[in-house]
């Protein structure tokens, strides 16, 4: 097991920029991407925490446009994961409205 815990946990704050918010397709893309990493990745909104590898978890955040999301990752490829997932948010999920 990779070491995890607050010590080697990285985080980055992103904003949901697309019009419809974190809907099924964006959530699916995030989950799919997250699943390609070994790191534990979580999306946090206020006190809610969703497993980034679970589309259902992400959907249950029900995050509309403008929501600030803190992506936290821990594990060997954590920094790469944060970078790529953050980029996905910035790109508005590759053209999904």
């Amino acid at each position: 097991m990779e070491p995890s815990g607050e010590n080697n946990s990285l985080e980055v704050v992103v904003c949901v920029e697309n019009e419809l918010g974190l809907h099924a397709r964006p959530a699916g893309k995030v989950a799919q991407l997250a699943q390609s990493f070994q790191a534990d990745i979580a999306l946090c909104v206020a006190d809610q925490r969703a497993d980034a590898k679970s589309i259902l978890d992400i959907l249950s955040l029900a995050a509309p446009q403008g929501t600030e999301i803190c992506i936290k990752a821990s594990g060997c490829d954590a920094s790469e994961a944060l970078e790529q997932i953050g980029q996905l948010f910035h790109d508005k999920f590759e053209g999904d409205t």
Partner: protein
Amino acid sequence: MARKILRGIPVSAGISIGKAYFVNRQKERRIPRETIPHHLVAIETQRLRNAVEEVRQGFMDARARVPEELKEHGAIIDSHLMICQDPKLVESAAKNIEERAITAEWALERSINAIGKAFSAIDDPYIRERMQDVRVVGDKIMQALIGTPKPVDLPAGRRVLMAHDLTPADAIELELSKIMSFATAEGGKTSHTGILARSLQIPAIVGVEDLEDSIRDGDLVIIDALKGLIFIDPSEDELAHYGDRKYQFEDYQKAIVKQCHLPAETVDGYRLEVCANIELAEELVQVKDNGGEGVGLYRTEYAFFNKSNMPDEEKLYEEYATLAEQLAPQKVILRTLDVGADKLLDEQAMLDEANPALGLRGIRFCLRYQNVFRMQLRAMLRASVHGNVAIMFPMISGLKELRQARFVLNSVKSELDAEGVAYNPDIPVGIMIELPSAVMIADTLAREVDFFSIGTNDLIQYSLGIDRTNKHVSYLYQPLHPAIVRSIKFVIDAAHKEGIEASVCGEVASDPYCVPILMGMRVDGISIAPQAIPGIKRVIRQIDMEECIELLGDVLTHATVSRINTKVRKRIFKRFPEELSFFASLIEQDDITEP
């Protein structure tokens, strides 16, 4: 004390003690909600993973086959694929198996329900609707776990069947020999499910609140279908008490069945014809075994519901001819197709009526779809040469309908004449009196028919304006409401004035409290469920007419149902304390007491 006692409406008398077994009607299959021994947890988890993999592979294959022009739809498969491998769903189900030691199916169901709960709290309707996708995927995995559902999938050993609801069609599909008794969450006092249970002589309780939440597969339950109680995980004392009561009841049943072939004649020589209501030719055995003196109501709907296709004339003819032959010289009254309130044919379902009970049912349906009606009448007429056959029209609301129906009958007769086909030209024709309008013009109707059969179930429903299967208002189903008592009396008097016979074929006629009142009205006959015959015949044989007339006079002077019920209960109970301890009377529902 039992862990929990549930209440429902007893619809078929008896007591049974056994293990509960659910058939999950809403999902068309049974989810085994059972615990498993700990050493099987790993195997169960593997079953779950295999099922998920099978479904995942199926989605992958499907996605590979999506043609270019339907790319848009490929996205749906993608999201299903995502859900299928979602840790939230699969891992939580695996965790359920491990922590709770339950079957993969139950674990999966719990996980889906948990997700559903979380989703239902989301404000965004678009996201909330994604739950549909979760259910689709969950269903597929469940399907893979359970395998192809079999219509009949009862385990060996007799069980107490539990279901959300059982339609007559479901009940036919089930292997009833494997069922000791059943309970359903839906249904009311005179729903057809209950009628079916009584025909099959298995104890049954319907309209049980909290049934599905309170009882799990394998729970030990006592079904007290005399009082409408279900004891879950009963105590030793309760088991002992009900063990005894079950024997007492069964002894009483045996005793009355022994005397059931004696005529239904009062102490002072008033003779009543006691016939049976049946809907399957197979029930004839029961009619004879229970001392029935013919069939006063043969419901002909089953042939139309039991098969995927409409029956043809030959099939119907065979059915009716068999009945006539086996019963002769006793009579059989064939009621023409009475589809409606709780049983719909495709033609009716297509009409999408807001209120089928007040819609195109009974004779109205037949007059609209005359090809079905004519075919049935042809079969009935042809069968009439094989025995003592009468025809009866249901749901007659006025003279015109009766005349139209008779017109069709006459035209069918001419048709048979022209073809040289034999039938009884003097076949008796009667009608059901089950609408308040028919009651009010009973004197006019009596001049144009050979007999009346008063269908009290519907008459009560239409007179009091209540849906008898609706458990919220079924308490208003009051057979001794002054309006009902007066209606029945008016109809019988009108019939006698015109010299025709009037019988009663509703549930009222199998209620030991009500029968003496009907006798006071000089009813000519009653037609009831076969297994109710022995008990009712015994009551008739012990009472005298003078007493009945006096009782009726008493009932007619009271203005409220509760006064009438109290009065009747007191008098009849005094006469038949033993008999009545086993009857769940229609007028006793409000004082169900625990043992």
